[in-house]
């Protein structure tokens, strides 16, 4: 059976300077942070990042001067504020951007994945965004009803990096919780890199076949990266490391060089030891255990 497993350190051979990179995850969930850190270590330059709802993944790449362009529908640290480097770099004119409507961006990725140059939908009528990007949004009339629809153009990333719960060596990748637009990114991209909490054997995949969202034939490389979404979540493996998100924001306020230097001077295993912490790991997993469902009888 094909074996696509490589080490995180080999990421640099799979992502080139200048590539258009789709980064998975959404909100605070499941961004491929171990891969992002590796891109920072590799000092990748001039990347275009594509994100639906980005977070510290995008912000860290901006801080590290790895991006020339960001395509997004939202980038936010939610309760922890606006994404600081996202603001700084765009406001200073140092990075160009394409702000898309969420559905336009998602359906653009979908279009590429299903082999059509565009898809129509009942679009964001009245929004000022489409007018800024005539190469991405157009109008199209239904040939049957005459209804005017929004057309969104197919978007093809050079590479998609998404973080899964587990994958087998062939690349069959599974999610249990949030998968966001990971599947659409993988289907749209020229090359697909799966990072995952755990590489498992095929039998484990078969036993949970309903959780396989990206089948192996799409996948070029499988990378085991435990806590690979940290400090973001990967449900059900761990909850949000809000404390380290706060540290991130605080480090930004103090100038960010120390934060970057630390990441560049260590391996991902070092990062896990230093930032996640052996003693903290079980508690971060416990954040999932303590999460509560309510029933009307609780009331």
């Amino acid at each position, binding site marked *: 059976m094909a074996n696509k497993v490589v080490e995180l350190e080999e990421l640099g051979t799979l992502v080139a300077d200048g590539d258009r990179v789709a980064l998975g995850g*959404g*909100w*605070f*969930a499941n961004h491929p942070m171990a891969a992002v850190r590796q891109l920072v270590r590799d000092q990748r330059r001039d990347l275009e990042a594509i994100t*639906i*709802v980005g977070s510290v993944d995008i912000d860290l790449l901006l801080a590290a001067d790895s991006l020339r362009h960001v395509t*997004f*529908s*939202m*980038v936010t640290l*939610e*309760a922890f504020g*606006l*994404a600081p480097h*996202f*603001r700084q770099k*765009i*406001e200073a*004119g140092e990075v160009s951007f394409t*702000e898309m*409507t*969420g559905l336009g961006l998602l*359906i653009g990725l979908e279009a590429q994945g299903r082999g059509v140059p565009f898809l129509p*939908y*009942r*679009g964001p*009528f*009245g*929004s*000022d*965004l489409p007018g800024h990007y005539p190469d991405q949004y157009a109008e199209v009339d239904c040939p049957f009803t005459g*209804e005017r629809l929004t057309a969104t153009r197919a978007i093809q990333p050079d590479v998609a990096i998404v973080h899964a719960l587990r994958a087998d060596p062939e690349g069959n990748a599974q999610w*249990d*919780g*949030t*998968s966001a*637009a*990971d*599947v659409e990114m993988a289907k749209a991209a020229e090359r697909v890199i799966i990072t995952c909490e755990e590489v498992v054997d095929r039998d484990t995949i078969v036993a949970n076949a309903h959780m396989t*969202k990206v089948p192996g034939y799409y996948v070029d490389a499988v990378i085991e990266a435990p806590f690979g979404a940290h400090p973001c979540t990967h*449900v059900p493996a761990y*909850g*949000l490391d*809000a*404390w380290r998100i*706060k540290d991130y924001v605080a480090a930004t306020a103090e100038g960010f060089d120390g934060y970057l230097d630390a990441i560049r001077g260590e391996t991902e295993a070092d990062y896990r030891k230093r930032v996640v912490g052996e003693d903290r790991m*079980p508690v971060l*997993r416990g*954040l*999932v*255990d*303590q*999460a*509560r*469902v*309510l*029933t*009307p009888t*609780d*009331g």
Partner: protein
Amino acid sequence: MSDYEVHELMVCRVAREVDESGVVVMGSFTPLAYAAYMLAKLTHAPDAYLAGFDAVGMAPVQLSFTGVEAAAYKGAACRWGMLTEINSIHLSNNGGVEAVSSAQFDGDAAINLSTIGPFEEPKVRLPGGAGAAEVIKMYRKMVAYFGSHNPRTLVEKVPFVTGTRWKIGDESREAAGLLPGPVVVVTNLAVLIRDEDERPFRIESLHPGVTAETVVEQTGFELEVPDDIPETTAPTDDELRLLREQIDPHGTVAFDFMPGKERMAYLDRILDAEWSAAERAIGR
């Protein structure tokens, strides 16, 4: 009647818009909106169909910054991804109620989440609208909520339209293939509503102690002021108990209402409580 805080009044008022028709989708963890949906599902709308993150058909959950996503999946009937959600809910007219907040909002129910200053050279680059541009247009009801009702937020015309309701009146909405329904604005001062193309927002109710004059003064767009404006219905004891004891015991909703200086210390207290709960869960 118990004492309550204004964010609790707002949660309860937003909850009243939630019914059992259509799906309610929660994106980012926005505590006030989440609390309102949970409250509705635990009280008058047990059959409300909720989707949060990629959990579809959610049970109501307790709010927390670090575990709310995990909770969403625990009682959910179905797993999807973003694409299936947008096609099966938003775009297929299965959206019920969407509660959004934005940097700016205007009298045509347009929102700005993109920029302060020129779009290409922003003074403040805002986070962007995610799916809001499409969602607020498609859903049956749009609820906009603002913790601080002032004329810099509620403006006459947003300088940049990230998204808009598109059509307001039921008839023009239906003619455009959209579900008919109102736009309801819930703020720290009042409730505003608009449901006709040719009439502006009107004040539906005033929170206790707030005058119509204050609301007009603090609103950048035209308002219709009825002669007789009721007071916003107060939360019931049952609602307050559910909110405080079950839905939001750590107080995530109040966080958005904290003044700048107190925010970080307040957040630390919430996070301490969540850490302790996790430690207990793993038997430390």
